[in-house]
Each structure stands twice: as C-alpha cells, then as structure tokens.
C-alpha cells in the first residue's frame, strides 16, 4: 500500500503532475472499479468461505472438512485426475504443435491462421463445444460412424462422451490451443544463433534440445501445464452439458449440492467444494504467474 503522496512520481514536468492534488481526485476514478470488485467479487467470495466453515446437517465437523472425506474426496480426486490428464495431454500435444508451426516458415499464413484459431478455440467452451462433440463422438456421431467403418468400435471399447475419457478428449479442444498461445512466444524467443552456436560446438539436435532448448522452455511448459490444469478444474458448462448434469466433476457437484440444499441439508457442502476450488486456483494460478515471469525473461 502506498504511504506518501509525494512518492507518486514527479518524473515529467507535465502540468497534470504538478497540479496539487487531493487524495480524492487521485482515486475517485478508481472508486467505481473497487466498489464493483468489493460488492460483486470480494463479498461473494468472503460469504462463500464463511458458509464453507459452517456445519451441515448431522455432521460434527465444518463443511470444509467434510468436503474432503469419503465420496466427496473421491470427486476431488476424480476431478484432479481428469484435469491433470487433460492438462498433460494438452501440454504435450500443444508443445508438439507449437514446435511444428514454428518450423513451417512458409506459407506464412499458416502461423497466423493457427494463432488466430487458437485465440478463438482457447476461449471456446460451454454449450456449443459440447454440442459439437455430441454430434462428432456421441453414440450417433459422425466420427463414431467413420471410425466404425474403419473397423474401430468406440462404443464397444467403452468410450462415452460423458465418461472420463470422453470429457478429457472434449477438453483438449480448448486445452491444446491454450498451450499453443502460452508456448508460441517462448518458441519464437529461441534464437537461431543459440542453435547454430550449439551445432558449431558439435552438438547433435538432440543434445541441443536436452541442454539448451528444453531448459529454456521448461518454465513455459510447466507454467502452461498449471494453467491448463486450473482451466480444466474450473470448467463447468461443457461438462454439465455433456453429462446432463450427472458428472462426478466438482464444478457439476457444486450445483448438485446447492440445489439439493433444502432436501438434504447438505447445501454448505457446495460452498465448501467451491472454497476448495478457489484454494486450488490460487495455488496453481499463482505458480503459473511466477513461472510465466521466468519464461518471459528470454523473450526479449
């Protein structure tokens, strides 16, 4: 928090800066913003945690504690496994895709097209994405049928669009492009001279990657993985639409407990699950931001 108004900076001799100002004129433009954040973001978050620490019907411990026992814990583990798998696959495939796109120098529109598409697809989600995959990989899906002609029986192999494997595949649709967006600046920041220097010193491509390329990319790779994990963990609409509200995933479970509130008296479990979700977000997004700062060191 700032203390002295004098330290605000007199770098330029502009009249704007020299005007003697009241504390009010300095902050009045920020007032609407901080009011919005306080009322519609901070207060709901505070309420969420307050209710998460209350007890549910016939329980001895706060909901926060109860939410990480028994079947509720299973839900967390299930969601974490799914998020980790979709983040891992998204990160690996995203890295391979980025490496490939960077190698294709012409036609030049390829890189621009992949970047633009990724910008759209990384933010895609919700109902339309679920619909697209139902039409492609549902029991009556086009791709299911194509694979069937090719002799691959997806349904017979136990694949359903709403089970673990199915949701993981659907999430890759936004995870891979997101990874591409994270990695592209880092891949572009790998200067050809570093590679040439390594080759001149007798390194094989493999050794170059092991000792130069990969260490330089590792903060971006790890950071991207964490971002993808957080992204999958908090996704709601797609999972809800794919499973018709029946998925074991935490975001879908939160809704279930809130709506069953009056019947079961377990409504506070919904708050507790959401509170745990925020804690998981803080940890992963915090680590991501630290790693991103690291990764950006090489990009200029």
């Amino acid at each position, binding site marked *: 928090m700032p203390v002295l108004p004098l330290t605000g900076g007199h770098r330029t001799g502009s009249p704007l800066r020299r005007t003697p100002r009241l504390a009010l004129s300095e902050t009045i433009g920020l007032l609407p*913003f901080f009011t919005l954040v306080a009322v*519609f973001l901070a207060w709901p978050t505070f309420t969420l945690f307050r209710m998460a620490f209350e007890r549910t019907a016939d329980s001895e411990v706060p909901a926060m504690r109860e939410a990480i026992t028994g079947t509720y814990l299973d839900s967390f583990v299930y969601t974490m496994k799914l998020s980790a798998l979709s983040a891992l696959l998204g990160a690996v495939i995203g890295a391979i895709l980025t490496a*490939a796109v960077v190698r294709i120098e012409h036609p030049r529109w390829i890189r621009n097209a992949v970047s633009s598409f990724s910008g759209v697809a990384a933010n895609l989600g919700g109902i339309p994405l679920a619909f697209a995959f139902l039409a492609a990989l549902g029991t009556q899906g086009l791709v299911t049928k194509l694979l069937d002609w090719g002799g691959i029986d997806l349904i017979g192999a136990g694949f359903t669009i709403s089970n673990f494997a199915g949701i993981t595949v659907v999430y890759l649709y936004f995870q891979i492009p997101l990874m591409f967006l994270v990695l592209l600046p880092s891949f572009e920041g790998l200067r050809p001279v570093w590679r040439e220097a390594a080759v001149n010193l007798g390194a094989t491509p493999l050794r170059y990657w092991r000792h130069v390329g990969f260490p330089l990319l590792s903060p971006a790779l790890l950071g991207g993985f964490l971002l993808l994990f957080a992204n999958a963990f908090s996704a709601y609409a797609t999972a809800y639409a794919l499973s018709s509200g029946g998925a074991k995933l935490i975001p879908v479970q939160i809704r279930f407990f809130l709506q069953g509130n009056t019947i079961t008296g377990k409504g506070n479990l919904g708050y507790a699950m959401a509170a745990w979700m925020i804690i998981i977000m803080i940890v992963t997004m915090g680590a991501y931001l630290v790693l991103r700062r690291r990764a950006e060191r090489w990009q200029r």
Partner: protein
Amino acid sequence: MRSRKKAPIWAWLVVSSAAVFFALPMIAMARFAFQRVPVALLGRDTILKRWTLDGLFDMFSDPDFRPALWLSIRIALLTVVATFLIMLPTALWVNTRAARYRSLVEVATLMPYVVPPIALVVGAGGAFRDIAPWFLRSDYSLVPFYVILAMPFTFRSLDAGLRAIDLRTLLDAARSLGASTPRALVRIVVPNMTSALSGSAFLTITVVLGEFTIASLFLKPTLPLYMSYSQGRNPQGALGLAVLMLLFTTLAFFAASRLREKGRRSTREAIGVLP
C-alpha cells in the same frame, strides 16, 4: 529466422492432423444441424440429400426464442455500457493520476481466474439471498458479474489503447489550449482510442453471449440457456443455433484482435487473452 529452409514432413503431419481434430467436431455439428439424414443412413448416395435450414427456422418461430435472444442482447449492451463506465475511468486513472495503484488494479482484474464463474455464482447466491433477494430476481443481476468476467480482457484492451497514444502529451496540449481535464478526456482522449473501445466492446459481447454458468444457476433464460434446454425439443435447431453463435463469436473475436493490432501492439499482446 532468416533461412528459407523447407519445413520437415513431421511438422506438416502434425499441423494437418491438428486441423482434422479441430475441424471434425465443427463439421459434424454443422451436418447434424443442416442435414436431415441420420448418421446410420449416411453413404455415398445420401451425402448430398436433404440439406435444409428448417431446424433453425423452427427455432426462430418458437415463442421462447425471441425473449431469450432479446434478453441476451439487452444484457450484452448493458454490460458494454457498464464496462465503459467502470473500466474506462479505471484505465485512465491508472495511466495518469493513480499510477501507483496500477499493480493493485492489475491483480484485481485477474481475480476472475482465481474465482471461476461456478464459485462466483455460488458465493453471490449466498451473499445476496438474505440481504437483497430482489437483486437476484432481476434479470439484470447478471450485468455486474459479466463486467467482472470480462474484466481481464477489457481492462487490458483499454490499458493497451491508452498506452499506445501519448496520453500525457495529449492532455497537456488540450489543457494548455484551455480545455478542462474532463473536456480534454471526452473530446481528445476518447476519440483517440476508438479501436481499443470497440475491441473491448466486442470481447465483452462474446463473453456475454457464451456465458452459461452464472445464467444457469441464477435461472435467467438467456440465449445459451435456451440453446441448452431446446436441445431435447428441437436438436437440429439447437445445434444450428450453436453453429450461428460460434460463427458470430469468431467474427467478433477477429474484429477485436484486428482492432487491437491497429493500436500497434505486438502480436503477442494482440492474442494476449492469457491471464
């Protein structure tokens, strides 16, 4: 990279398989929406038959469709207005008088990544249910939350727009010619950042038109909710609507990033929707 080397085969293989993976679900959705042939009967002789827009037209004539569309449009416009009223002063102040609050504001605008929509809506329900139930009943209760959801994009877009122009010189010039600060802002600064303003408006609209979680838990019959519920009644129409919404979102997104590039930012910032 300066050499004009030919890309290796594997790179082309990777890019083309990615193209297939990303194109197939969209093709499947469009085919389902606009062709009245069950997948089981698809073959060489049926592939060109019975393409129709009837599913979509049935949906347009559904009595629930128009109210949903209209509600989404009203909420989108209100969210854009509220975003300008709140985020424009914030970006202006952070770039002039209140520069020392910049990092605090930046951290606050990233909070929607830490509190995802599903957690935000749960907390908001608990917070407002007892104190202001009338607020939750109103359809417009979605607006402040949508301003917050769009904040990471809109603040950065407006901030980049302000940084791209020489704000201090413009303000000083206007003021030394006799304009008051508010007048200088309205007459000089805002007209100089129209691309940042319209860019953030487009981004806000795409956020509002795609948002399902909060609307669904607040039981507000917006377009995404209508789309989800009408899947049972008119699956073709629902998927057709999804295709239209994806097309619209894509166009709006391109418009937004094109406008941002006009502000002379690097490509990294142009696609910089990352937290």
